[in-house]
């Protein structure tokens, strides 16, 4: 499948399931307005060949992108309000020098991360996906894979270390 065809596919999948996808975002963000914002952002990313990658299950991937963008959005809002509250209380919050470094969400960076994860042993990759995407606890992952929680912990550490090893190749936003 070519990238363009893939994006057409992701884009049309998104459109066909727009209201359910927005509902998934709203569940995380609380308001319709924020959900619309994130859904729009997700749609732009999914329908742009320069910012997405090949996904075997288009609908599952649309949900994955919406969910993760929504969670990140919520996290950023919480961060901003906690810094704001500290300043209101008169705390001397240091101002970051310039814009903090964020990695761009684009095709190239996603492929680098994909490659880092591809290098992992199959079971480690699976444990990491359950942890990162499936929102399972390390104990639950251990139960599903039939291994100890300590081993799951070690596998997740291996996966995160792989991400760290590759991160110097990532482009900043």
């Amino acid at each position: 499948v070519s990238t363009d065809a893939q994006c057409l596919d992701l884009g049309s999948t998104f459109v066909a399931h727009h209201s359910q996808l927005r509902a998934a975002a709203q569940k995380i963000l609380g308001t319709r307005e924020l959900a619309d914002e994130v859904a729009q952002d997700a749609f732009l990313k999914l329908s742009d060949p320069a910012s997405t990658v090949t996904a075997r299950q288009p609908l599952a991937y649309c949900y994955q992108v919406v969910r993760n963008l929504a969670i990140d959005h919520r996290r950023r809002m919480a961060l901003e309000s906690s810094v704001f509250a500290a300043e209101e209380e008169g705390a001397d919050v240091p101002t970051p020098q310039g814009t903090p470094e964020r990695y761009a969400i684009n095709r190239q960076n996603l492929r680098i991360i994909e490659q880092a994860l591809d290098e992992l042993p199959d079971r480690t990759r699976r444990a990491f996906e359950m942890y990162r995407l499936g929102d399972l606890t390390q104990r639950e992952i251990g139960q599903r894979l039939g291994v100890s929680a300590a081993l799951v912990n070690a596998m997740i550490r291996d996966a995160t270390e792989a991400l760290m090893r590759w991160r110097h190749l990532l482009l900043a936003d």
Partner: protein
Amino acid sequence: MKPSERDDPVWQAAWSWVQREHEKTMDTVARVQFDDWLQAEAAHRDAYEEASSLWLLAGLVPAKRVGAGGADGSST
């Protein structure tokens, strides 16, 4: 963004906060510690931003395994 930053204690701290946030294991005390850590140095916030954007990227890579993103891919 040098490879040697892997051993940087600020980066390591930022990364473990990101993971604790993901695991939702932070209680009120940990929340306060996290806020204090963030506000102590601009470098902490920068490292945290960088680590959380790496975490986001990792969450946007399609699952290799069918169903890894949740039974039917949705959380509804």
